[in-house]
């Protein structure tokens, strides 16, 4: 039995290394600040926590969601300036000012995020730089508010309420608290539906949308959480140094440093950014000590080189490498033979293809006698070219409808119009009696129980097979445990159970097609759109996929299939419609279609009859 499926249990055995080893690390962190006598080293430890928290916050957006922000310094600066100004002008305690700063930073982040998340990755990075630069100008030139380049000096008045303390220890423990909090938040996110959604949209946004992921909202929420922590640490910074100026809190190198720590430590992992800070922050202090004496800037040369070498040769970072010895280490520690999670490892009962019913939708509404799906006069132009012209058809409950036609006939355009990737120029689409013509973006269509696959499969490459399918099951099961159980049923059904822990990138083409099918099925569609699922497969693989499609149909799922492989479409379909130059030229049973003169001329060819 695979352990990874059963680690999430409510009661843990405290004598198991999986429990006491991380606990020992946390205890060690608490002892760490009081170990050194010199304030120099206390400061170093504090800075490790400080940068670790910031990098982990950046990682939520840059690592998990793959949205590369080079403007996080803006949020840090807003946090620092807001709480400082509120304290200096109105005497508002920085403890409260911290939340005011975070709130303001979040508002700005929403203003930035909503327009910029539409941009492709490189441009998103560019736009975030621009926004951060604008804020630096504001801070530099709005002298009445910020004193401009002179900066703001906070008079030292130590008290709990003023967030100022004698010595370094109180600051060190505040920083440690923040760091542990962000580790906890990251860990919760990583193992939750939200975390799966973030990683899935990083890997392939279109695929994530078709599985019901509201990608815009997920990105925004990740940004908000990340910005909250960044701004809070900004306040901490101001209270610790008691001096801020635009160049120190609104600086591009600051944003880059967050990314550097995260990349070195391990992008998109929970502890990667922390590891990165534990390695690079001391290095930074040492380098500044050694090289700073020789000349300013030498430490940044070293950083730059480290960054370039890391992204070219070690993009997985240290966390990826640590993983390979963390498990063996745990197994060697005393207590590893004990059961970690008492309560047993109840495995789900074995499923057979026939016995399961993973994709079965909610029982259909009794009153629906009309067709399940209706398209009326669909028309879509690209420039002056009609990709789809006045196409009308219906799909009945439980039917398998085939869609064939030469390349460029508009087949995929119809799929894209149905699933919310395109808006038709005119016409009407109805599903279960409700109009969904302009339903956008695609995740909304998924949630009405229409699923689809892509002609060129879009696996989430850096997720395992099981995780890929879980993204689908999460559209209807909130909890990770339930989603995992459901996903396992689906994997069993499509015959990928053995590969469940392999990365999707390692699958063969045939298995990727199965995965694509399984993921779509996991959303429990009532209508499933399959775009050339057997194209490129050998006869035996084709045979197996056809079997699966039949089984799906037998569960009552209505199917709409684009296919060029005639044997597949003719044996599967109850009814076929034929597109040619965007127009529907025929509709009928496979026999009727294969004898239709126009279809033969346009698509099948004379030899098909023979």
């Amino acid at each position, binding site marked *: 039995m695979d352990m990874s499926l059963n680690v999430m249990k409510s009661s843990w055995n405290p004598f198991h290394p999986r429990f006491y080893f991380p606990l020992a690390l946390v205890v060690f962190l608490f002892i760490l600040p009081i170990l050194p006598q010199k304030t120099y080293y206390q400061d170093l430890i504090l800075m490790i926590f400080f940068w670790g928290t910031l990098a982990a916050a950046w990682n939520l957006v840059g690592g998990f969601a793959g949205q590369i922000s080079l403007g996080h310094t803006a949020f840090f600066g807003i946090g620092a300036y807001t709480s400082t100004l509120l304290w200096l002008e109105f005497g508002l305690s920085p403890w409260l000012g911290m939340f005011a700063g975070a709130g303001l930073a979040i508002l700005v982040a929403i203003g930035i995020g909503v327009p910029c998340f539409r941009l492709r990755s490189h441009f998103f990075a560019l736009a975030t730089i621009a926004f951060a630069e*604008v804020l630096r100008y504001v801070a530099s030139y709005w002298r009445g508010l910020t004193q401009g380049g002179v900066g703001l000096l906070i008079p030292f008045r130590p008290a709990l309420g003023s967030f100022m303390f004698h010595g370094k220890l109180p600051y060190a423990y505040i920083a440690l608290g923040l760091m542990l909090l962000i580790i906890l938040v990251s860990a919760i996110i990583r193992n939750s539906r939200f975390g799966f959604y973030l990683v899935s949209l990083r890997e392939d946004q279109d695929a994530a949308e078709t599985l019901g992921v509201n990608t815009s909202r997920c990105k925004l929420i990740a940004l908000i959480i990340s910005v909250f922590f960044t701004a809070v640490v900004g306040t901490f910074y101001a209270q610790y140094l008691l001096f801020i100026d635009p160049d120190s809190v609104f600086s591009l190198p600051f944003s880059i440093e967050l990314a550097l720590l995260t990349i070195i430590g391990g992008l998109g992992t929970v502890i990667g950014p922390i590891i990165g800070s534990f390695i690079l922050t001391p290095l930074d202090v040492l380098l500044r000590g050694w090289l700073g004496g020789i*000349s300013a800037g030498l430490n940044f*040369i070293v950083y730059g080189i480290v960054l370039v070498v890391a*992204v070219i040769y070690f993009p997985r970072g240290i966390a990826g490498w640590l993983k390979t010895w963390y498990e063996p280490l745990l197994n060697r520690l005393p207590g590893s033979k004990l059961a970690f999670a008492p309560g047993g490892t109840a495995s789900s009962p074995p499923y057979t293809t026939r016995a399961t019913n993973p994709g079965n939708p909610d029982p259909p509404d009794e009153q629906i006698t009309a067709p399940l799906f209706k398209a009326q006069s669909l028309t879509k132009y690209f420039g002056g070219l009609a990709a789809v012209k006045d196409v009308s058809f219906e799909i009945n409950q439980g039917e398998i409808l085939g869609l064939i036609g030469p390349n460029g006939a508009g087949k995929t355009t119809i799929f894209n119009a149905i699933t919310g990737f395109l808006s038709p120029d005119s016409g009407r689409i109805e599903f279960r009696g409700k109009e969904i013509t302009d339903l956008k973006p695609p995740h909304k269509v998924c949630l009405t129980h229409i699923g689809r696959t892509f002609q060129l499969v879009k696996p989430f490459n850096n997720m395992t097979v099981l995780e890929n399918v879980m993204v689908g099951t999460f559209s209807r099961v909130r909890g990770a445990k339930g989603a995992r159980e459901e996903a396992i049923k689906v994997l069993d059904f499509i015959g990928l159970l053995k590969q469940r822990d392999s990365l999707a990138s390692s699958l063969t083409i045939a298995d990727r097609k199965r995965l694509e099918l399984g993921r779509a099925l996991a959303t429990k569609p009532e209508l499933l759109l399959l775009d050339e699922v057997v194209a490129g497969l050998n006869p035996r693989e084709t045979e197996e996929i056809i079997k699966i499609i039949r089984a799906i149909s037998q569960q009552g799922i209505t199917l709409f299939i684009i296919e060029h492989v005639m044997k597949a479409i003719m044996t599967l379909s109850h009814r076929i419609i034929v597109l040619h130059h965007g127009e529907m030229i025929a509709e009928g049973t496979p026999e009727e279609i294969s004898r239709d003169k126009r279809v033969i001329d346009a698509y099948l060819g004379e030899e098909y009859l023979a």
Partner: protein
Amino acid sequence: MVATLVQLIINGLLLGGIYALISIGLTLIFGVVEIINFAHGEFLMLSMYASFWLFQLYGVDPYLSLFMVIPAFFVIGWATQRIIIQPIIHAPPLNQIFATVGVSMVLQNAALFFWKADYRTVRTAYSTLSLKTGGLMISFPRLVAFVLALLIIAALLIFLKQTYTGKAIRALAQEKRAAMLMGIDIYRMYRIAFGIGIACVGAAGAILIPIYYAFPTVGALFVLIAFVVVILGGYNSLVGALIGGLIIGLVEAFSGFFLSPHLKEAVYFVIFIFILLLRPVGLFGRA
């Protein structure tokens, strides 16, 4: 007032020519290699220093140094593509972004290390020369810079239109796979395109040094303008980069006069943000 307006237009256009030359290199690299060269400004800074030292040490006139800087920077660009970009050409955007960000960090701080933070410029006989006609004043080095920038851009456009290599690069920018199938060595074309892009920004540095200062972070200043130009012109249109450069030059001249020279950056970014919001493909870009 009319004279002032004409003067502002002239100033703006002259400035815009150089912006266009810097931006066109960035656009070419983005259009072909599909990465944003975040180190673009640092290459500008390097070439400004190169011209400065050629003048300072060997008395080479900055305009003459073009003949050394352009081939040298082509080689530097070629090598950057070969050593740093090529290994990660298929990697996720994050790796590509931080590779050039890292290069930018190294170059900027290397300049700080070797040449200190001092502002350096070239004083030539023509540095302060200007043409005066009908109440207008046209700075001679700025005029030369403008003419040279346009000539180099014209040469680049002709090269891309007329030669096999140029056509291959354009084909690659349109459709990578088809270009490969036509027997184009795409990796070689990437190196050439990157080399040309850096040669352009190298040339810009040489013609900029008689009218501006070289210092380690000068690139950061200009690259932000180039980013705005590229977004404005459409990130895959060379002609868009040219027109975008001229527009930003005009914006700078006018905002400097009517608002405040300090606010010109703020004005760029407002434009930048509006373009991103309203027309993300830029004025001349294709979706």
